[in-house]
C-alpha cells in the first residue's frame, strides 16, 4: 500500500545523495531488542516531552516536523509487523487503477468509490490518523503532533 519510493526515502540518511532507483531498500538481518518501532517511538517521546518545550520559533517548528515524521515511521513499522488481514487493506495495483480511471475504463460506481476511500483511509492511518473523520477512525489513535499537516 505504500510506494517503494517512500521506503527508500525514509531510510535515506540526511545529507546523503538520492539512492539510485532499483537499489536494495532494506536488509533482512533481524535486529536485537528493542524493535525499531519501539526505538523510534521512544526517540519521538524524548523529542516531544523533553526537547520541544525548550524550543521556540523556527527550531520548534522543525522539531515538530521531525516528531511528525517519526510518528509516521512508527505507525508504518507497526502496521507492517501486523498480519495482512489486520492491516485491513487488500492489495490494489494503484498504477493500474489510476490508468483505468484516467482512460475512463473504470466505471464510477460504489465499488470504485469504496476502493478509493479504503486506499486513502489506510494511508491516512499512517500519515495522520488524527485527520480521519469519526466514521473512518482507526480503533486506536497515536495522536500525532501535526507540524506540516494542517
Amino acid at each position, binding site marked *: 500500500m505504500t510506494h517503494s519510493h517512500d521506503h527508500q526515502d525514509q531510510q535515506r540518511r540526511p545529507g546523503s545523495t538520492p539512492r539510485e532507483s532499483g537499489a536494495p531498500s532494506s536488509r533482512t538481518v533481524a535486529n536485537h531488542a528493542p524493535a525499531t518501532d519501539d526505538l523510534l517511538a521512544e526517540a519521538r517521546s524524548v523529542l516531544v516531552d523533553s526537547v520541544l518545550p525548550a524550543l521556540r520559533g523556527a527550531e520548534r517548528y522543525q522539531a515538530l516536523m521531525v516528531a511528525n515524521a517519526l510518528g*509516521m515511521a512508527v505507525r508504518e513499522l507497526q502496521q507492517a509487523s501486523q498480519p495482512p488481514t489486520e492491516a485491513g487493506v487488500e492489495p490494489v495495483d494503484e498504477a493500474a487503477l489510476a490508468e483505468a*480511471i484516467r482512460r475512463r475504463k473504470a466505471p464510477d460506481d460504489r465499488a*470504485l468509490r469504496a476502493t478509493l476511500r479504503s486506499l486513502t483511509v489506510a494511508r491516512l492511518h499512517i*500519515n*495522520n490518523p488524527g*485527520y480521519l*473523520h469519526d466514521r473512518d477512525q482507526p480503533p486506536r489513535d497515536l495522536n500525532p503532533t501535526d*507540524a506540516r499537516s494542517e
Partner: protein
Amino acid sequence: MAELAEALCDYLVQKTGAWHGQVLAFDRLSGGAIQDNFGLTLDLSGGSHPGERAFVVRQDAPSGVAESLGRPEEFAVLRAAFDAGVTVPEPLWLCEDTAVTGRRFYVMTRARGNASGRALAKAGWSEVRRRALVARLATELAALHRVQPSSGVLGFLPAPEDGNAAQARVALYRRYLAAINEPHPVLEWGLNWLEDHAPAPRPLVLCHGDFRTGNYLVDEGELTAVLDWEFAAWSDPLEDLGWLCSPSWRFGASEYEVGGIGHINDLLDTYFAASGQTVSPQELAYWQAMALVRWAVIALQQARRHCSGEQRSLELALTGRMVVQMEYDLLNQIDALEALV
C-alpha cells in the same frame, strides 16, 4: 545583509528625493517561497516620504516557479488591484536594473498585521467579528473581480484559451499529474468528476490565484492587506472563492469553512451584495473540490523536489505525505456535493 540594506536605502533616497536616509531596521520576512521579502524601515530627511517609513521590498528569488509572475508583472497587478480599491500595500517603485541589488525588485508600503493562518484560526474571535472579517474578504474579492480583460490592463496575464477556466484547470492538473509519474487514483477520479460536472463558466475576471488565510494581513481583527499576488490570472471568479473555502486552508478550525475564519453563507451573501453575482452552494462546492486537486498536484510537485534531490527538505517531504489529506478531503467534498443536489 547590511550591504543590501544600504543599497536599498540609497535607491530609496534617490527615488523619494530625500537629502539623507538612515536604515533603522532591515530583516528578511517569512512567507516568500518564491521570492525574497525584506522589511526595511528608514528615517528619510526631506523628499516625498519624509520621516520614519516602513517599506517592504520584494525581490526575485534565484529560482522562480515557472507558473508564477516575475516582479515587474506582479508590480503591475498590485497597481491594478490598488486602483480597483482592493486593500493592498501601495506599490511604490519597480526596479528592473539588476545593478542595484543584483536582482529585480519592487518597493511597497508595509502594512501592519499578522498573516499566520494558525494564529488567525486560533484567535478566539466573537461570531460578530468573524462575520465582519468574512464580509471584508467578500468585498475585497468583489472589488478585485470588477477588473475585466476588457479594461485593457494586464494583457500579459494568462487566461484560459476558450474562456472556460474549469476545463482549462482540469487539463492543466492532468498534465501536472502525468509528469509526477506516481499513481494517484483518487486524483484521477477527482479530475474526471470535475471534467464531467463543471458549472457554466462565468466571464473572466482578475483573480488573485492564491486568495486564502495566510496570504492576507489582519491587525486587531481588521484586514489590513491582501498579499502574495504572484499567481494572479484571468479566471472564473469562483476559483478565488473556492480556494478561500478549501478545507486545506482552515488551519485546524474546520468548523469555519471560510479559511478557518467564518461561514460560507456570510461570504456568499456579502459577495452578492458587493458584486451582484449570485453564487450557489453547489457551484462553490465544485470549486472547493477543484481547489483540493490543485493543492494536491502542487504538493506532489513540491515533494518531487525533495525526492529527486533537487532540494532536500523535511518540509517538502512532509508536504508529500499531506497529499493523502487532500485526497481524503476530495472524496468527502464530492460526497457532500452530491448530497446537496
